[in-house]
């Protein structure tokens, strides 16, 4: 079917301008000539690098060395826990936060939220100047106008309400009190967006003080938790993780290993670490606590006068066993309740008192100030706002429009307030309604103090001059009070000047020997008087609103590092979802990704995709708070642009959906769990992005050699089994090496061990590594395509089901194999072995064949599929100048923090001393609150890592394939007696 050829083909137009030889030049010839010319031009054009300038400083700041990092002690502002940090400052800008090992509370660890809080400083969406009626203004004008308003309010006796996040800075508290003192009707109310204050109410009733005891998990031989996610999100997770693991060191005498029982409705990282875990729905919580209290009271010979609905109880035998264990370790035990339920908290206090835990594991003489506020006061203020009685509302560090449900904090009610002043750092729902926005500094620009625990005060000092024309709240308040004073001066007024002050700043904290806090004796009456909250019974689900370890509240919703951190339990990123147990999902015929509508009897509803979650109570639907914030609208175009791109944000243009409409206000304030909800399938689907879609470590039945066989990646043991087993783990014997002579390791041989007994899977290491190593954020769609870039992947495995579900977390990074399979397949020698056992990845040599990635048995290599966005000039200030920023088409992976190895070596050489064990601490190791990671020289017999390798718990993953990894693991030890933790490496 050929068409007749045109007589004059269009591509050969002989108009006389072109030589006939040219026009008939073949394509091949043309390309040859063009190629040659192009290369010639390139050689000429590129022979010289472009001219670059060097701009030295005019004045040399004292003590600053260009290219050398300084560390300043300060206090983390990520949450109210107030962990001590050492902020790494390089050439005048903070680029990394490290835990302060000398800090009495956090003791050197830092969580994912703390690590990621650095990005808040360099957030390009922050307010750069005060805003007046939506327009940028200047401080002189804003101050003058606000002072006028304030004078009028003070004269007229107006109602002034100051709504803030938890304030545990004595200096700031004084500034707020001073400021409010001039108004006749003024009130300061604090609240936590995702947590109530039932625990404070309970201590007020039983001990007469609104405080939380300072919990010492390191002194506890047995810990019983009721919905208290103390390793993940509750009160002071870094401190608790450190103390918890300190009492669970398996290599010491096994008898000192504490025991941990957890009763919870949905699986938390705390429950995942428990030796025994029981699923208890929120409606049964009080009944089970009461059962336990009665059993403990009998042993203590104390009366217990409560009776609960017996249908909610657990088997009496089980409770008696728990009570026995607690009684044996009375005074060395602790019962923790994390639920916002006054009755539950009161009963919990009773149990602790009956066990004599106060003054031992629970310190009320030096209590914690990390929880503050009052739900009752909040309720009152919301009532006043709803009634239109509030004249001036000051909003400091919270977002009431998003945080607070129902009547009181709606847009219509807030609009009735005559004047709203916001101290928001970046635009949010509430600041959009404010008449004036007087932006606060980021904490790395601020002077402050934090009394997180009575007698321990952490200091916050600025690491950088404010990036915008912002002002610290204490200075703003002072200016409006007519007593203008800098934040530093206010701080020095309290903490002194001169050498003492300098020493305190240098340390980052001070321990006061001031008189201890006074609390009354235990009062039993309120425990018996409290009425259990009525839970309506129905055939529906009980709602549990929780917070993720990586997203404490919507105030962090701007932070892409936190959004891309896989949730420790669900492994989902960039989303919240409705968690349902496998049985529950089957019961209502829904599967993963089906969008479900969760509705309250009052009609409020929220639509979320289902995530099927093992280990959850079958009557519970769990939803994470802190999502669906306006601040996440910025992620609309997140991720590389290409034809198949799907957005990172949902249909609402935001990351996730806000769950606050589902918060109801009950008798103890906001109720976050136990509300009856109905689920309806919407028929729609929404694809979740999970970094791990395999769940169980059990070998499928049809493949298993014996029932109950498990993959050997995770090896578990029990304290009892460890005590009797003397033999150390025997490595599979292999003959022959791939590289017999090449790799002698005459100098250092770097190695790492990770103690799975300590690891909680919290993800602090993942973010620490991301910040340290310039790991890009890729967005939800790329994660969905398995293209996440994190150098550390924390594998999470389940075994068993229901109450017998056990969970193991296993951080996986490049294993720096001695017989590395990646090295043999690289066609361009971009990944080669170093003399010190490092598996080097040379970015500038890599051409991106990805053979290495395919050949890696641990699947820890990451490929830059795109040129990931580095467009945000502010955000780029977090980049570590000691690590190359990788471009598209290049493979990357964990380098064992080669830059830190280099730095430590160079410093040792400069000091003329040999490198000592502990000089090098990788970013993940430094940050780990559990101290699970040990890094060092395997050739040094005295090193900590060598000791760790010689532990009888040490094993390597995929040892049988003889790749000789330099990363090893220490068996996961649980303190259980039932033989559940089987020793698997011989099976």
């Amino acid at each position, binding site marked *: 079917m050929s068409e007749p050829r045109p007589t004059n083909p269009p591509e050969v137009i002989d108009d006389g301008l072109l030589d006939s030889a040219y026009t008939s030049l073949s394509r091949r010839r043309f390309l040859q000539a063009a190629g040659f010319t192009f290369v010639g031009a390139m050689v000429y054009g590129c022979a010289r*690098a472009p001219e670059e300038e060097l701009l030295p400083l005019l004045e*040399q700041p004292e003590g600053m060395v260009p290219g050398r990092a300084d560390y300043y002690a300060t206090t983390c502002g990520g949450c109210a826990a107030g962990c001590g940090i050492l902020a790494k400052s390089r050439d005048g800008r903070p680029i990394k936060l490290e835990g302060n090992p000398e800090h009495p509370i956090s003791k050197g660890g830092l969580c994912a939220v703390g690590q990621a809080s650095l990005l808040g400083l360099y957030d390009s969406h922050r307010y750069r100047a005060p805003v007046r009626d939506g327009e940028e203004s200047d401080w002189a004008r804003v101050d003058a106008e606000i002072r006028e308003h304030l004078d009028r309010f003070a004269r007229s006796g107006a109602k002034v309400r100051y709504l803030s996040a938890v304030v545990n800075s004595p200096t700031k508290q004084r500034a707020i009190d001073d400021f409010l003192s001039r108004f006749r009707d003024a009130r300061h109310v604090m609240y936590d967006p995702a947590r109530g204050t039932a625990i404070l109410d309970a201590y007020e009733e039983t001990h007469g003080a609104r405080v939380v005891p300072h919990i010492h998990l390191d002194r506890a031989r047995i810990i019983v938790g009721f919905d208290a996610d103390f390793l993940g999100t509750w009160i002071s997770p870094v401190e608790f993780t450190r103390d918890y693991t300190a009492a669970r060191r398996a290599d010491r005498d096994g008898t000192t290993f504490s025991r941990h029982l957890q009763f919870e409705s949905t699986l938390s990282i705390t429950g995942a670490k428990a030796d025994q875990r029981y699923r208890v729905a929120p409606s049964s919580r009080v009944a089970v606590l009461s059962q336990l209290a009665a059993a403990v009271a009998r042993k203590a010979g104390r009366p217990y006068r409560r009776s609960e609905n017996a249908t909610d109880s657990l088997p009496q035998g089980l409770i008696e066993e728990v009570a026995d264990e607690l009684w044996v370790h009375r005074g060395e035990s602790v019962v923790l309740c994390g639920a916002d339920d006054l009755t539950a908290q009161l009963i919990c206090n009773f149990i602790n008192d009956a066990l004599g835990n106060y003054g031992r594991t629970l310190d009320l003489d030096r209590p914690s100030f990390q929880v503050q506020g009052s739900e009752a006061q909040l309720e009152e203020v919301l009532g006043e706002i709803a009634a239109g009685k509030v004249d001036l509302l000051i909003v400091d560090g919270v977002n009431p429009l998003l945080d607070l449900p129902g009547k009181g904090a709606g847009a219509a009610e807030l609009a009735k307030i005559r004047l709203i002043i916001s101290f928001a750092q970046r635009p949010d729902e509430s600041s959009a309604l404010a008449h004036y926005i007087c932006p606060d500094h980021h904490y790395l620009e601020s002077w402050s103090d934090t009394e997180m625990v009575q007698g321990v005060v952490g200091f916050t000092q600025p690491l950088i001059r404010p990036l915008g024309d912002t002002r610290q709240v204490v200075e703003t308040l002072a200016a409006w009070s007519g007593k203008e004073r800098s934040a530093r001066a206010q701080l020095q007024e309290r903490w002194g000047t001169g050498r003492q002050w300098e020493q305190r700043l240098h340390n980052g904290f001070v321990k006061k020997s001031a008189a201890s806090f006074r609390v009354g004796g235990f009062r039993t009456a309120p425990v018996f008087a409290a009425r259990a909250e009525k839970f309506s019974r129905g055939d529906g689900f009980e709602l549990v609103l929780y917070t993720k370890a990586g997203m404490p509240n919507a105030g962090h919703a701007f932070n892409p590092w936190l959004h891309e951190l896989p949730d420790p339990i669900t492994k989902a990123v960039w989303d919240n979802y409705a968690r349902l147990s496998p049985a529950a999902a089957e019961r209502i015929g829904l599967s993963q990704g089906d969008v479900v509508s969760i509705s309250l009897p009052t009609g409020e509803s929220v639509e979320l995709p289902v995530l099927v979650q093992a280990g959850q109570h079958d009557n519970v639907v769990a939803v994470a708070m802190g999502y669906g914030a306006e601040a996440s609208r910025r992620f609309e175009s997140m991720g590389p642009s290409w034809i198949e791109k799907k957005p990172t944000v949902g249909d609402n243009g935001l990351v996730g959906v806000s769950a606050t409409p589902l918060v109801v206000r009950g008798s103890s304030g906001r109720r976050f769990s136990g509300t009856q909800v109905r689920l309806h399938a919407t028929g729609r689907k929404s694809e979740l992005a999970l970094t791990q879609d395999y769940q169980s470590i059990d070998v499928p039945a049809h493949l298993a050699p014996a029932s109950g066989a498990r993959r050997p990646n995770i090896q578990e043991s029990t304290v009892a089994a460890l005590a009797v087993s003397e033999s150390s783990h025997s490595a599979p014997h292999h003959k022959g090496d791939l590289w017999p002579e090449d790799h002698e390791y005459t100098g250092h041989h770097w190695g790492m061990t990770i103690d799975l007994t300590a690891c909680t899977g919290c993800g602090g290491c993942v973010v620490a590594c991301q910040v340290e190593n310039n790991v890009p954020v890729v967005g939800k769609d790329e994660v969905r395509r398995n293209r996440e870039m994190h150098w550390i992947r924390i594998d999470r495995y389940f075994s068993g089901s229901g109450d017998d579900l056990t969970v193991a977390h296993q951080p996986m990074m490049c294993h720096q194999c001695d017989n590395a399979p990646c090295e043999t397949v690289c066609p361009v020698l971009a990944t080669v072995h170093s003399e010190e056992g490092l598996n080097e990845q040379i970015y500038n040599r890599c051409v991106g064949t990805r053979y290495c990635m395919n050949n890696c048995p641990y699947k820890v290599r990451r490929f830059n599929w795109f040129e990931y966005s580095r467009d945000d000039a502010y955000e780029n200030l977090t980049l570590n100048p000691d690590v190359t920023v990788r471009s598209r088409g290049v493979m990357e992976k964990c380098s064992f923090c080669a830059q830190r190895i280099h730095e430590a070596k160079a410093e040792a050489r400069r000091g003329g001393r040999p490198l000592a064990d502990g000089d090098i601490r990788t970013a993940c190791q430094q940050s780990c609150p559990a101290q699970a990671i040990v890094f060092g020289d395997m050739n040094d017999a005295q090193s900590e890592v060598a000791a760790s390798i010689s532990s009888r718990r040490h094993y390597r993953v995929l040892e049988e394939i003889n790749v000789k990894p330099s990363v090893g693991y220490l068996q996961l030890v649980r303190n259980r007696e039932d033989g559940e933790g089987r020793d698997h490496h011989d099976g």
Partner: protein
Amino acid sequence: MKHSILTLVLAVAAFFSVAILLAQGEGAHILWNRQGYAPEQPIAFSHRLHAGELQVDCQYCHWAAEKSRHAGVPATSVCMNCHRFVSAPLGAVRAEDAAATEAGRKPQPVVSPEIQKIYDALGLDASLNVDPHREKKPIRWVKIHRVPAYVRFDHRSHVSVGVSCASCHGAVETMERVRQVESLSMGWCVNCHRRLNASGLAGRPVRASLDCVACHY
């Protein structure tokens, strides 16, 4: 016919390419190599005078070389340590002295135009006090010795084991205007490391890494 034209095109291209390469002076370069590069600087600072004739130690100005990855270009305030008192060559000052004595007047301060640029950068007035009305402007030096962004060179490691500045930078104390003497290519670095591993440095054995990760990470 068409072959001969193509051959001609190729030959001309080849000729020009080679000619361009040769015209660069020091033979063919590999990409980004700047051996021999000696750009004009905003101040005609003479290393020959300072480091050679006056024997100012390299690390007096480049003091970070021993402490840090970067040797650093000295802050302008470091220049003022001397140039607060030295504002012109001795000859010019003596000539002014002589002229003043002859004319029976007080000698005028003499400031050389190059040193004046330091004062201008710092916003100083004639009596070397900070003039708040003058803008402070950093001196925009032109960078000579550079390695690509994926190379991490550490001055500290080299200085602390006794590698002389001249082994990489050449005899700077003889240069009126600094010129890049060595190629600073990877082969050049590695060869030096190999040589030192074999010979040692100043009689001491040296362990100069040949690992890629020594510089690339």
